[in-house]
């Protein structure tokens, strides 16, 4: 029984792991081999809830606990203001002894706020002092163009920090769209840092496991 339970638990991870590399599709054509990935039939994803979300952002972006998100200066987003939408229990205040099984309508919105805030805080710290995450960016300049060394290094660093993997070539291509605005003009390096961090940090891959 234990073996069976273990197998069921590990199956999606094994399927995912088996599809992580498709034998050299790094030609930049956008073919990641993902079509060959078999869909997980049970799809039993776990939700990274408030405390884990906070800790992962602290670890990935090397932020202090109070440096992740403070809602309008009135309290921690993850522990005080939006904790229920982020999957926490609240036994003392509202008698919610077990966290909600599924995300709420407001969950994606709140996740946007939390990750955006954390990314802005990290970018501000890196701009104002010795950079920790955005080490290859010159904050006084425009964003590096897709394909530049600084571009690839920045995106790769974020993928490794937030998703514990390297970006696929087509993902690098997609994120190249964040180096410019709607008119095709380069954005600032600061905006590029924040937007790239936000796009990766609010992906379902970061929130579920």
């Amino acid at each position, binding site marked *: 029984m234990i073996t069976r339970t273990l197998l069921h638990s590990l199956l999606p991870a094994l399927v995912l792991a088996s599809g992580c590399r498709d034998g050299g599709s790094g030609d930049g054509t956008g073919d990641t081999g993902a079509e060959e990935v078999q869909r*997980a039939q049970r799809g039993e994803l776990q939700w990274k809830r408030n405390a884990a979300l906070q800790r992962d952002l602290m670890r990935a972006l090397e932020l202090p606990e109070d440096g992740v998100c403070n809602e309008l200066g009135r309290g921690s987003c993850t522990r005080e203001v939006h904790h229920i939408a982020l999957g926490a229990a609240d036994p003392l205040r509202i008698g919610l002894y077990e966290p909600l099984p599924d*995300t709420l309508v407001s969950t*994606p919105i*709140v996740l946007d*706020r939390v990750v955006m805030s954390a990314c802005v805080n990290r970018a501000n710290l890196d701009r104002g002092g010795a950079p920790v995450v955005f080490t290859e960016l010159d904050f006084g300049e425009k964003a590096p163009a897709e394909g530049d060394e600084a571009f690839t290094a920045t995106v790769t660093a974020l993928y490794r920090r937030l998703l514990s993997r390297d970006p696929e070539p087509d993902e690098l291509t997609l994120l190249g769209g964040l180096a410019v605005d709607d008119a095709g003009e380069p954005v600032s390096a600061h905006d590029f840092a924040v937007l790239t961090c*936000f796009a*990766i940090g609010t*992906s*379902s*891959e970061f929130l579920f496991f």
Partner: protein
Amino acid sequence: MTTNIGRRQMLLAMAGAMGTTALGSALGRATEREGSTADKDRKLLFILCATGGASIVDSFLPVTRTEVDDDALADTLNVYDDAKIITPTGSNIRCPGYVEPVGLLGNLYELGFNLDGFLAKHHRWMTVLTQECTSVNHNVGQYRSVTGAGINRGRTIMEAMALRHGEDLIIPNCNMANDGYIQPGIDASLPAFAQAEIIASPLGFAAAMDGVKGVLGAPDRKLVERARGVRESLDDASMFGKTFADSPRRQRFLGNRREVQPRLEAAQMMDRLTLLPPELLDPKYGVMSSPLLPTLASKFSNLLVDPWESQAALSVLLAYYGLSCVSTIGLRQEPTFGNEKLITTPIAFDFSHNDHRMAQYLMWGHVLKAVDALVDLLQQLDYLGDPALGKMWDRSMIYVATEFGRDKTRPAKAESWGTGHSLNNGTLIVSPLLKGNRVFGGIEPSTCETYGFDGSTGEATPGRNCSESHIYSAIAQALDIEFPERIDMSALLA
């Protein structure tokens, strides 16, 4: 049901396709558009959870000493001196007058709202229903008070309400209460949209309506939208996204992010729902107070410190702006301070264990103060800001839910005493949708126990019991919620 879901999905898709939303156009709008058929027919339900056991015998079904007809027996029952009972002019309902704070803790409290003043003002909308509930366990009693002890396939009345009236709304079922009042029903077939949005921080909830506004240093919104677009592409193209494309949990999350979030942000809900006054909003965040805050604050003067009032205020905004059709609010366990003294007891009505009469009077006053404010506001505001839709009050019901009653006895001649939980009780509903100024059922003076009534005729009969399922059915019938097991309560309808 299939039809309903289809319609909701169609509306969501249309909203996305138009780059705006039914909600967005319906808001800022006041008279920008006529209400839809759904808007015109929609009912609104406000559930006020009187946590801890609100006793009907200590509010709108009191017994006087002389009615007991036996002085010695009266000394041992929870009865009131005849002079203490007030029946306002025109009212068929009565209540205790001012209860002097007595007992060890009497001087700790500040009595701010009298029951008789409420009764004089609102008796025409008040319906009292007797009931015999089925549990004296707090959590179980709370849960059954909103599920009718499971009469409707295990759906809470909030879920049933959302299904019936909320298919076009973004968050039709908002629940700010606690304990058993926030437990979901057990009907696995319930569509996700009808499930409750749990709100623990009403003062902070507005921020959950916009993913960017008020986040200091966030890039320009156009750039954020660009990043969101890239994110969606990444999510669809990634190995993770393809592997778990069928995950219900992920689908639900992405569905809300892709369909609902744009509607809320387009409607600028954050500014509309913000209950913080300008002096508490640092201008650097660029967030505005709700345009209705002055109106709300005139009725809920403690909303910044009293969660009960902030919940009630938010419930008005959620309904007014067309976000929800049912809001549930609940008394917190911790006491609330007024100017110098406590305005609520610790553990709400359950402080009756220590000091029954004081706790009941204080807490009933606190509950009714919010009901009074709600009625005033709902009578003042046009639904969705559209005069053509009439006042919100015309379509509203306020249900004061509680888990059970309290013991009816006391130590002989005691003026301050504690009570345990009792199955026997009654319920207060305030609404123009029911026959008001009426008590359905009755009370036996020699025991202070209530007895039930026939829902189809309204006839009260000693020995008859009405349960949670009767209350649920009465609410459902008045709100056009149909289900096969519904008990006929047509005698109560206005």
